[in-house]
């Protein structure tokens, strides 16, 4: 598999409307090989002949539940599974079962969120390279793939690993506040004891990406909460 869109995705959802919507959604996103079914029996049959790369499973099905289905599937396949859960208890049940399900999304979900999770699971499971975007901050561009900061077509700076992690996390939630706790967790792996280190790191990052680091207009501070990477159209 060269990219995630080559993955064979099996959607097991008993509600025909939602199933059709999911198949359409995946098709429009670019997934070329997508199948749908509404029962455990059909899913097992399709899985044995078609060998999907990823299962998108509803928890409650007319002839069984998604957890048991995954247990059966695991006997012959290591393909990752993403659950569509409609019950709050499913999350803890899933962990308790130790099935090794790769993720779950609670209904109702935003299509964009589902697609992101799906792509992440596929990349993680099949070790596909993440397509890192280039972040545009006015005249400055940050190429996350190379870690270079370009201004007017010239590379003016290179990001360190921590700076890269920081701007990547901010760009994932561009336009929204990312709390200092979340940033510390993403960059340092722990949210305690890194507040000062984060402030220093932020200063360095701003020096590389902002025109005036003392008066930042792209990575703005939200006092007492965290930082926000401002959307382009907001400028």
């Amino acid at each position, binding site marked *: 598999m060269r990219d995630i869109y080559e993955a064979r995705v099996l959607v097991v959802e008993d509600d025909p409307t939602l199933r059709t919507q999911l198949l359409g959604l995946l098709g429009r996103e670019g997934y070329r090989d997508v199948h749908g079914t509404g029962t455990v029996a059909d899913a097992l049959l399709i899985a044995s002949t078609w060998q999907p790369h990823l299962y998108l499973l509803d928890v*409650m099905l007319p002839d069984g539940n998604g957890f048991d289905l995954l247990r059966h599937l695991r006997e012959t396949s290591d393909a990752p599974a993403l659950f569509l859960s*409609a019950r709050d208890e499913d999350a*803890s049940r899933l962990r308790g079962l130790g099935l090794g399900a790769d993720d779950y999304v*609670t209904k109702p979900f935003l299509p964009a969120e589902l697609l992101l999770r799906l792509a992440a699971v596929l990349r993680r499971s099949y070790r596909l390279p993440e397509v890192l975007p280039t972040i545009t901050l006015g005249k400055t561009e940050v190429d996350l793939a190379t870690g270079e900061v370009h201004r007017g077509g010239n590379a003016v700076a290179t990001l360190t690993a921590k700076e890269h992690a920081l701007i990547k996390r901010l760009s994932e939630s561009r336009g929204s*506040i990312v*709390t200092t706790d979340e940033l510390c967790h993403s960059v340092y792996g722990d949210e305690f*004891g890194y507040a000062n280190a984060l402030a220093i790191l932020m200063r360095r990052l701003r020096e590389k990406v902002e025109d005036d680091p003392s008066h930042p207009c792209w990575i703005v501070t939200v006092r007492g*909460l*965290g930082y926000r990477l401002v959307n382009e159209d907001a400028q």
Partner: protein
Amino acid sequence: MKGLARTRMRDGLGIIASCIIGATVILIANVLIVGAVTLALSLTGASNTGPSATEVSQALAKQGGTYTLSANMVRDLRKHNCWALLINKDGQVTWGLDVPDDIPTSYTPADIASFARWYLNDYPVSIWRHGEGLVVVGLPKNSLWKYSFTSSFKTLGGGILLVVALFFADLVVLVVLARLFARRSWKQRDDARNEWVAAVSHDVRTPLAAVVTDASELLESPQLDEAERVRAKRIVTKSQETAALLADLNTANRLRYAMEPVDTCDVHLAAVARSVVASFLDGGTGGCELELAVAPVAEGVCVRGNEALLKRMLSNLVGNSIHHNPQGCHVTVSFDIRAGLLGSAFRQRCVLSVSDDGRGFGAESLSTLRKKSGDELPEHGLGLVIVRRIATAHGGRANFTNNEGCGCTCTVELPVAVRRT
């Protein structure tokens, strides 16, 4: 789950009280029944086995050299198939009425001693003194059971004590059994209710997912004009609100019925507060200004609990202020630490409060919110009831008050688990 524990304890004490009262009532009723039956038998004469030796002795008179028994007594003895005889001082039978053939005609003192209280040749007998000797009245065989009971006072006292002890032991067994049955029925009731709510939640969420998926895709459509886009956005938002409401209902139900918070860990409350406030600022606060004030001393303080539940608790509080003040107001979320006993770290508490200068609570909703947690869910304002239940489930408490000027303050106190730096 202190609230639940209180309810269960109340129910448990109720069971114990009803068992004790029930057992006592049954005991008294049994004694009364036995007394009544005995009285009835004696009144109707059903237990009358015939004239006693005393009566026969009094009715037996010696006239000249012969003995005569009154006609009434003879009739009475015969009516009950009894016989009677008189043994003189030499041990010889000197008079008899209907005496069976297998009854001896002479007796030694030893013979008399051996049958006096029991049976004479298997005939139950009773004896009484007479001027000429000893009157013996015999009843038909197998008509009377006689048993001599002899006991020392010590044994008798012990026996009575044993009966009393057994009564209380039985009572304890009764209480334990009743509690076991009650527990099972509580569990069945809880399970059924949880299952029902979860099933309804599931059934509603699937069509909601279909609605959100369609509306979200519509939002992306380039053919939509701005007004249509706003409407599509509203469909998404309202569907998500419905889903959140379902989640609230589920949580309230789980916390009410036998559910401890699951997946507990040390939750960094300041981070939770920042995350909740940030998501409100991102998602829109209506016309409200939202401010967060975390005291420096509260940084790094963790409570033991479920992060998702604690986030929902704070979201409900902030959401309540925003939702009920569409005209706009100032909402302040503050997080501080209240010193423990005598200023020490022992029993330190996290104090999370959300206060606004808006409309405040109505008198009715305030009284609903202050009811004990065992009560049923209110028709409206589920969000704040959940706040109280989540706080209780985490060993804390929630307090709702109206401010003096305007607006209201909701305060949640939770026990500090650990402080991390």
